[in-house]
Each structure stands twice: as structure tokens, then as C-alpha cells.
């Protein structure tokens, strides 16, 4: 079986200089891969490259299948006047000629996807009024509507209570068992131990492989920058001193 995503010697960045380099990994169908690293370590940059927003500066990146994305909810605007159903329907845009609007078939698909993530009752609710976990599930439903074979989740567990996190985790298991490939950026090293593989990034690829062999003290220290991470059980939040590169622009600070 060929990989859904394959990166060989990949380097990506916003200008001429790469902010992430030496990336070599593969995402197989049915796998959940945790992407670990400090803020500014390149997780978001990798996702943007997978989504086609950034072109590789060097190396190769093959993406065999549509990418659906579940961004951090802070980024989606909570006061935007859309319902959960509207958000799910956004997944139908690419599959339609540009002059057509969503019809009955698309609405049925979107409702069915909301049903799969357990939110059929809340389809008409304003997106911003849903709880954090419900919002994540709406965005997963949007990826389902897109028929995405690859799903990228950016810190989906941040700010969720235990019950919502468990529910989301079960949903991700289900998606993987259907043969989708799941990439999950996270700070939670412990949680990543339950997944199939982990990819450790800190401006370059530190390690890639099954968590049991990969998540050694040395790898974690290299990933999170020095000796600050001493206990793997702590998720290394204290070590995250680096700012993402696009936040260092003085022009926008006022």
C-alpha cells in the first residue's frame, strides 16, 4: 500500500530561508501520527505545506488525496454569523462548479456528516455558541464532507474537558479505521504515545517512528530545546519559549 503523504528531504519556509528542513516521513492510510514540537518548531508550517499554501523550497512532498483541516478554534472567528450546518457545507465548495450553490444533495451530505460526529441536533446552532469540543467536531464533519483522505488537526485537544477529549479521540480512531490518515499536532507527549507514530519537529525533523521507540529523553530534549524537559510525563509547555516566526513582525504590533 502506498503512503497518503510522503516527504523526502523536504524544506519549507515563508521567504527564501526555510523555517523547517530535513523532513522525511510517510503517513500511511489508517494511521494516526502525532506531530510534536515547540511553538515555532514548524508544525503549522508543515501543515501549510501539506495544504498547498507553501511550496517546498527543497526536497519532495507527495500528497495522494484530499486534505481536510481542523484548525485551532481561536483562529476561526467565533462571532461570525454562520451555523454548524453552514460550516459543514463549506466542505462542498471544491466539489462543485464555481457557479453552482449547494443544493439538496449537498445539504443531505452535510447533515449526515454532522450526524456522524454526533451533532445532528445542533446543526442550526450558531458555530460560535457551541462548546470547544463541539466546534472541533463540526470542523471534523467539514473534513468528512470534503471526503478528505488526510485530516490535519492543529492542537485539537487544547482547552477541552476530559469527556470532550475522549469523544474526539474516539472519533479520530474511527476515521483512521476507515482508512484515512490523521495528522495531529499536539503538545501532549503522553497522549501521543497512544497513536501509531510520532513526528518530532524543531525547525528540522528530530525523529519519526513508533512512539515507544521514538520518544526517548534525548529526542524530547532535542525537540523541546535542551534540558528543560526532564520528565516526559510533563508535556513540556514550560520549554516553549520560541515565538512563531510570523509573530515577529514589528509592522503589525501596534
Amino acid at each position, binding site marked *: 500500500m502506498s503512503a497518503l503523504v510522503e516527504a523526502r528531504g523536504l524544506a519549507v519556509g515563508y521567504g527564501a530561508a526555510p523555517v523547517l528542513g530535513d523532513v522525511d516521513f510517510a503517513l500511511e492510510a489508517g494511521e494516526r501520527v502525532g506531530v510534536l514540537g515547540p511553538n515555532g518548531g514548524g508544525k503549522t508550517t508543515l501543515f501549510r505545506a501539506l495544504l498547498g499554501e507553501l511550496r517546498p523550497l527543497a526536497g519532495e512532498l507527495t500528497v495522494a488525496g484530499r486534505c481536510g483541516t481542523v484548525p485551532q478554534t481561536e483562529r476561526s472567528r467565533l462571532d461570525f*454569523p454562520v451555523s454548524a450546518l*453552514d460550516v459543514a457545507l463549506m466542505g462542498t*465548495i471544491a466539489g462543485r462548479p464555481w457557479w453552482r450553490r449547494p443544493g439538496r444533495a449537498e445539504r443531505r451530505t452535510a447533515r449526515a456528516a454532522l450526524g456522524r460526529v454526533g451533532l445532528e441536533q445542533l446543526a442550526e446552532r450558531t458555530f460560535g455558541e457551541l462548546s470547544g469540543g463541539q466546534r472541533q467536531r463540526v470542523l471534523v464533519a467539514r473534513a468528512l464532507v470534503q471526503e478528505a483522505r488526510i485530516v490535519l488537526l492543529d492542537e485539537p485537544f487544547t482547552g477541552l474537558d476530559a469527556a470532550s477529549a475522549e469523544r474526539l479521540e474516539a472519533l479520530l480512531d474511527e476515521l483512521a479505521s476507515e482508512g484515512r490518515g490523521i495528522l495531529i499536532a499536539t503538545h501532549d507527549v503522553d497522549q501521543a504515545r497512544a497513536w501509531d507514530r510520532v513526528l518530532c519537529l524543531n525547525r528540522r525533523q528530530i525523529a519519526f517512528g513508533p512512539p515507544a521507540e521514538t520518544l526517548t529523553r534525548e529526542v524530547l530534549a532535542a525537540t523541546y530545546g535542551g534540558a528543560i524537559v526532564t520528565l516526559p510525563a510533563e508535556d513540556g509547555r514550560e520549554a516553549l519559549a520560541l515565538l512563531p516566526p510570523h509573530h515577529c513582525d514589528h509592522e503589525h504590533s501596534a
Partner: protein
Amino acid sequence: MTVLASVLTALGDPWDQGIMQRALLEVVLLGLVGGALGCWIVLSELSYGAESLAHGMFPGLVLAALTGIPLLLGGAAGILVAALAVALAGRVPGIGRDNAVAVVVTTLFGLGVLLALSPSSPPGIQGLLFGDVLGTSAGDLLDGAALAAVVLAALWVLHWRLLAVGFDRLSARALGAPPLLADAALLILLALAVLVAVQGLGNLLVVAVLVAPAAAARLLARRLLPMMATAVAIAIVAGIAGLYLSYYVRVAAGASIAGFMVLAYALARLATLAESLRGAATLTEAN
């Protein structure tokens, strides 16, 4: 009964005149375009851009008025130049976009005033600055209706792509809605809408119809389509109210229309404020 009858006469009276009928149609066109597109302008936080384009097109309008070519052409050329100048200035390193836009707009607006107020120019700059909704001709209405139809059709077709970009810029591209394309489309539609509205409200007051009704509707509606309908309704009602005011009290029509639109926003704001206060009060009572 006589009171009712006289009120009805007073309400119906203005519309016997051709000037007022054309003004009414112009106000409806304004409201349709301004209200609908305004929602995207407010949601995308493009108010400063709208204001800048409206001001920056001024030399184009003045040149058209001086040389006798149609205002619509002059305005279109003016907007094109303004947009190009803004695009270039935004790329000058080191001063920031906000300032770049301010520099371009100040310069172009100053240039327009210089052309319009030099002694060799005929009088009548105020019509360009503040609009002349009562001077709308049948030809103006036809042009306006054609542009309005283009804007509304484009909004209808682009709706879902604009929605995806407005909701979440960063993942919109993966959904098949490239953000830069949506930006460019909004900019072009904004230019068209300014062209429709400039006849009625003039270069300075155009931004009222593009921002105020939509900003008010945003406070009142919780979905985009109702928000657009509310904004259009507010814009048309405010426009008609402005026409009545100018008919009976003889104040400047464009200014009173713009004034009513801003007033509508202020009322909507007060209403939501009162509601949240009442909500807070019931909460404290419950505790």
C-alpha cells in the same frame, strides 16, 4: 380620519414629482448594493479600505466633471488609479500598510480638491463631494441598475467562497476558496458599489451606506442571509427617511440619508446594549 388622511397625503405627496421618483429608485439601488456588499465589508473589516477607495477616486470624478466625460467612467478610472497606488505604496518597505494607505488617499484627495477648486474650474464641487440624489437622471438610474445587478449576481455566485474565506482564511484554500481571489473579488465589487453610490451620496458620504446598515444588521441578525436582508432594509428605510426629511425640511438629501444610516446603527447599538443590561439584571435577580 382627517388626521390619517392628511398623514397619508403627506407621505404620498413627495412621490408625485419625477425628481423624487428617480431619487426613490436611486435610494433603493443604493440600499440593495450597499446593504448586501456592506455585510462582507464589515465582516472582512474592510471599512478603512472602502473609505480610502471612495476618497482616492476623487480626482477621477473631478476630471470627468471638468472634461465632460461621464462621471461613471471618470470614477472607474479614479478607483483603478487609487487601487494601483495603494497596491504600490503597500509594497514600499518600512512604513506599514496603514500609513501607506493614508499617504495615497491624502495625496489623491488633495489632488482632486486642487483640480476642483482652482479658479478656472466651474463651481459645483459640492455635488461631487456630497452627492446629488435629487439630480439623478434616467440614464444614471440605468447605469446604476446595471452595476447593481452585476454586484448582486457576483455576491450570489461567490457567496460560499466568500463565506469560507471570511470564516477562516487559513483553511479556506484547502476547501477550494483561495483567500487572495476572494480579496480581489471583494475589492472589485467594492469599486463597483462605490460607483453606484457616488451619484447619490458623493465621494465623502459613500462609506455611510457601505458600512452603517451592515454594522447595524450585524448587531441584530445571527445568520448571514438575514443579516444581508436586514442591512438592505435598513439602508432603504434610512434612504427614504432621508428623502422625506429633505423634502419637508429642505436639508441636504445626501447628508440626511447618511445621517439616518448612522442613526440606525446607533439605535441598533443602544438596543443591544439595553438587552444585555436587561440580561445582566435578570441574572443578578436569579442569583
